[in-house]
């Protein structure tokens, strides 16, 4: 079948023309870019990208196909994918299929033969923009107008759109569909520096705002049994499960769009349940603790964001993907401490409550794709949970 023409039209009038290597039709979204040289499967299936049209700066994509164990959720979450050149073959014995087929199967539009460097430079100077990807309408002016008129992400509750509709357990059927990470044939784990799994196993409640499987995999590996709840679950229902700890996952969009979840988080934290949040979870925690969030002009995306851990003085290279950020100034300095700072722009990357056992980070310590610098945070969380539990038992 001959490939169709595809146009990516931006609200500011810019248009990029390419070829649809998968899918057809039209889709709206926010156009963002990611500069990682590898890890397209993880990016594509990361629920944080829900509602976004993702451009990958590196020009050659899809070379090693798609395999189940490198997925971050059961389906692609981005609204569309824009690349320089998509490979016709999946050069990987372990691949379950090729990238075009994967997109096609989930009804996504994939566009290639686009100058992704130009898009990256454009967004870098203008900030993330609303866009439309179309294989049907060839009228650029009309497309631009439609992109400009489209509703943006601000205030929209995207997290609810990607959160699980029903509570579930992990390990469980979901885990079976996404194999438990990678273990070498000789028994060595991919993550060698993980602490020993907690004994006895811990019961952790997870608020799914668009959780990446790798976060669940890591918690499971470290000795946690998970109850995964939809984002709109009230605090009472979470507390009724009598969790040892509470984990708030990553997710897409504007946290202000789900104030209801921030309320639930506040109630759980105030009930004394040890809490850990990542990315969107960090933002929810910030809101729950009385802070505000704001939209970054460019957002932080990519696998090479330097973050200073104030406690250790160590710089970690982190994987990030967020367009919103907790406002440092908005938090009560007497109650909440900023633990991590982004070295590029000085924004908040982590916080800790001084009285309640809770902390969170803006970046992705589970890091798939990305450096494995920060996986120790999951260990720190479960240690905190274990400590609190034994303290509770003693009390």
């Amino acid at each position, binding site marked *: 079948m001959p490939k169709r023409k595809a146009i990516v039209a931006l609200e500011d009038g810019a248009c990029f023309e390419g070829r649809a290597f998968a899918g057809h039709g039209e889709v709206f979204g926010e156009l963002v870019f990611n500069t990682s*040289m590898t890890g397209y499967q993880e990016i594509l299936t990361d629920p944080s990208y829900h509602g976004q049209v993702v451009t990958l700066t590196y020009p050659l994509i899809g070379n090693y196909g798609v395999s189940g164990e490198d997925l971050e959720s059961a389906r692609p979450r981005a609204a569309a994918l824009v690349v320089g050149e998509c490979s016709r073959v999946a050069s990987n014995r372990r691949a379950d299929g090729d990238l075009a087929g994967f997109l096609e199967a989930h009804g996504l539009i994939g566009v290639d033969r686009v100058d992704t460097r130009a898009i990256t430079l454009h967004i870098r100077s203008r900030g993330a923009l609303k866009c439309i990807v179309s294989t049907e309408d060839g009228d650029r002016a009309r497309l631009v107008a439609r992109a400009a008129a489209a509703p943006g992400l601000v205030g929209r509750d995207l997290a609810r759109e990607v959160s699980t509709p029903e509570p579930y357990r992990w390990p469980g059927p979901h885990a079976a569909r996404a194999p438990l990470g990678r273990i070498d044939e000789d028994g060595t784990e991919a993550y060698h520096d993980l602490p020993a799994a907690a004994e006895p196993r811990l019961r952790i409640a997870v608020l799914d705002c668009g959780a990446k499987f790798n976060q669940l995999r890591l918690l499971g590996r470290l000795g946690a049994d998970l109850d995964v709840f939809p984002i709109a679950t009230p605090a009472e229902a979470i507390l009724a499960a009598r969790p040892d700890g509470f984990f708030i996952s990553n997710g897409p969009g504007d946290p202000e769009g789900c104030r209801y979840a921030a309320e639930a988080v506040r109630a759980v934290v105030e009930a004394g349940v040890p809490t850990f949040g990542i990315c969107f979870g960090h933002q929810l925690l910030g809101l729950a603790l009385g802070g505000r969030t704001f939209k970054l002009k460019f957002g932080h995306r990519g696998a090479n964001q330097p973050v200073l851990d104030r406690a250790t003085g160590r710089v970690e290279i982190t994987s990030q993907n967020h367009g919103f950020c907790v406002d440092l100034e908005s938090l009560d300095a007497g109650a909440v401490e900023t633990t991590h700072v982004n070295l590029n722009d000085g924004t908040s990357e982590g916080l800790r409550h001084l009285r309640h056992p809770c902390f969170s980070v803006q970046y992705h310590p589970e890091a798939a794709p990305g450096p494995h610098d920060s996986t120790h945070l999951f260990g720190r969380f479960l240690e905190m949970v274990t400590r609190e539990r034994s303290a509770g038992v003693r009390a």
Partner: protein
Amino acid sequence: MPRRDDIHKVLIIGSGPIVIGQACEFDYSGTQACKALRELGYEIVLVNSNPATIMTDPATADATYVEPLNAAAIEAVIARERPDALLPNLGGQTGLNLASELAKAGVLEKYNVKVIGVNLDAIRRGEDRISFKETMNALDVPLPRSAPAYSVEEAERIAADLGYPVVLRPAYTLGGTGGGLVYNVEELRTVAGRGLAASLVGQVLVEESVLGWEELELEIVRDAKNRMITVCFIENVDAMGVHTGDSFCTAPMLTVPGSVQQRLQDYAFRIVEAIGVIGGTNVQFAHDPVTDRICVIEINPRTSRSSALASKATGFPIALISAKLAAGLTLDEIPYWRGGTLADYTPSGDYVVVKFARWAFEKFADAQDRLGTQMRAVGEVMSVGRTYKEAFQKAIRSLENGRHGLGFARDFHRLPLAELMERLSEPSSERHFLLYEALRQGADVEDLYRRTAVKPWFLQQMKELVELEERILAHRGELPPDDLLREAKRDGFSDRYLAQLLDVPEGDVRARRLGLGLRHGWHPIRVSGVEDAAYYYASYHDGDASPPASRRRKVMVLGGGPNRIGQGIEFDYCCVHAAYALRDLGVETIMVNCNPETVSTDYDTSDRLYFEPLTVEDVLAIYEKEQPEGAVVQFGGQTPLNLARELEAAGVRVLGTPPDTIDLAEDRDRFRVRMERLGIPMPASGMAASEAEALDAAARIGYPLMVRPSYVLGGRGMRVVYTEDELRAYMAQAADVSPDRPILIDKFLERAIECEADALADGADAFVPAIMEHIEEAGIHSGDSACVIPPIGIPPEQLRRIEEMTGAIARDLGVVGLMNMQYAIHEGTVYVLEANPRASRTVPLVSKVCGLPMARLATELMSGRRLADLDLRRRAFRHFGVKEAVLPFAMFPEVDPLLGPEMRSTGEVLGLGDSFGVAYFKAEEAATPALPLEGTVLITVARRDRPAIREAAALFHDLGFRIQATEGTCAFLRSCDIPAEPVHKLHEGRPHLVDALMNREVQLVINTPSGKESARDDSYIRKNAIRYRVPYITTLAAAVAAARGIAAVRNGRGEARSLQEYHRAMDT
């Protein structure tokens, strides 16, 4: 952490001569290290035996010792210079081994020298196979599975467990002898039996084979705070089984999932932390794409060929940063262009880098073109493109082997598919060209993958190129439609190759392309670790992202491309000096080169570096963008010279000697006319475009003859021919002979003394700084012959004559810049053999021995200065410099290791001393193996050489050597009253001379080949000398020189002195 204050003077050991597997990448890393450490205020003492390096320039270090690289010589330097630190991981394996040896012998402790950058104990743990395995087990890093066996039965059981094929490695044998890969139980029984017998402890390690797994490399840099970063992820397109030096590679990895790369990095970090290197480490892995298993294969805790490639591919100068880290700095103190510090570094970029190797199988007639676990490549190219296809095609045209695209190499397109498939079953230097033709004939990607283990993605990309090429071929005889041309240019097809495919002139393709607005755009590779630096690559994708050309005075310097035999590091040395000299003159320099191993492609050698193929298309585009006042083509060897004419025709101004003069010197007729006019004799000569013409010329000139093709460097295809039959045979096998490219025929002056002179000229005047006398007689290529400065056996009036002739020729030709002349002195007459009005191999040698920066001076002359302004005088000196060639025969065991008119050396060393003898001995020592000071010399020479061997034999006898000789030689020596003991040849019964070599009963072999006079092949004598590392000499002149050297050194070799001291001691 700031720099260390507890050290002040740092010793750096270089890697010695260029050999296969250890090339000029160590000049690049060593030069960077010197630069970095001097910038931090340390004093540098440098030892390296290779004169052709930038590293050994007197300006690079504070004290430069051109001495043999062995423990005794380095101890002497340490005793004299008293450095307080040694940085051992920048001089390749040679430097690292020497550091270990010095530490083990207690030398470092004795002189209180601290080792910086590495922990030598930890390195030993990494290199010893057994402790390496223990270390990896302790770290939980997987290795190929293996188990030791003490009997054949046990080996069988283990092999059955692991599955065939398996690798057998006998424990404790010399160089792994007796081991190998076995595919079945029969082979296993044979090899295991042999291996168990060979092993000192009766043990054979049975190891699973990882043949066909992906070979993946990471370059890790670690600092004293244990911060680690991965500079580059490299994927070998050729799978395990082909040495990584021969493998075609890409950076970044293109077909390896991100999750696998993460695991590799986790393992690599663990290893590097355990080994404790400060600076760069290369870690090589095998990954099984089927089971997803990963094994670590080896680590190189030092700079390497891969680290040079990684540096150039990413813009992260690993050696520079490593040296700073060794001096105490940490990554978080060094700036990073993306913001923050190097502690935040991660590989980035939106381009593809390809490395492709350059081989020299054509130089070794008997060598088999087969790639395996031993490296065979002599050089490499790196190319950069926006896509893999573009980068790959650029790599092919960078190779400079006459191919501008992948198709139609040799006769491959005429071979039936079955034969192509058969040839593909074993890796060779031609495999990717064979793959291309196989795909053209419809071979299946999966089939090819099964056969070659080259992964489907790479094959698919190649297949798409073939498909596009087929569409282009459909337009043969005309220019293709615009869209097709556009597509072809985006996919990296060169103008030249398109012209070849379409059978139209290249100029037509270029004109149409430019008419369509299809132009190069350049994109930066930003340099990490320094403020604001970048270099550039071109692409036909996505416009131009390079800054506009400056309005300053500027000059373009064309580099030498890949190293190959006959064109090596010397030419890079000249290009680098040209850049330095121009910078000092206030002229901006633009460098173009594609060899990642070199100093010329270091980011700060020139003002603007273009990492590009040296072809008309690529160079012209840069020239047109930059608009320099001219281009320097005479420093980069044959590569830029081959372009000069076309560039000039396209409007490029060539600086210095005009291309027409360079052509004139190559054109026998035109040159002879000039020489006749000047009254300078040349050996009788002729030219032939056919066998008949050759026989005619031979009849006129008389045998013996020297025959060769025109327009070659390094004596390619050159032979001495004694008879008509030999001449017929030569003409029959000479390829591509045409009236445009005839065969050159010269009278061969037998037993003549050969010498060379270098000159600097400004078009009107000339200066001759040095005359070099060859040790070997005429007939041995000048690149392979040892030579001495100043001459020792040429009478003063002939020296004067040579100087006059050199000056006269330079003036007559109007040379501006450098010229090298070759002469032969035959029966009292000086003949001109050839004139090379361009940089030659001897430039760095003369510069260092005579204390005169030749390339710099030549550059000044080319930029308009006059000789008179430079105030040059011949300076008298009392030292001697001997250059010796280093030959790669040990890498080609099937080749007869003889010298001849075709150059085959890969590198050279320099020996310096107060007498010819000491300098010669030191040169031999540096070239290894060293000459013996006593013992037994085995002499076996051809009948025609017997009278002439008498002098050498007498000298060895007087020195107290025992002489063993084969029957005829023995009888002759006895007849001259030189005592000799007979020894059997191989076919004469045992014990024979190979037994004597094997038993170490012989310390030196003097053997001249019997050639055509004997029916028996005597090459086994020389091959076994190499195998058992016994020094051997194949010419009579070298035998006499060796005796003089041994005699001199027995009286004391004199104190080692630095180049700076030699130069200061010269009469000023």
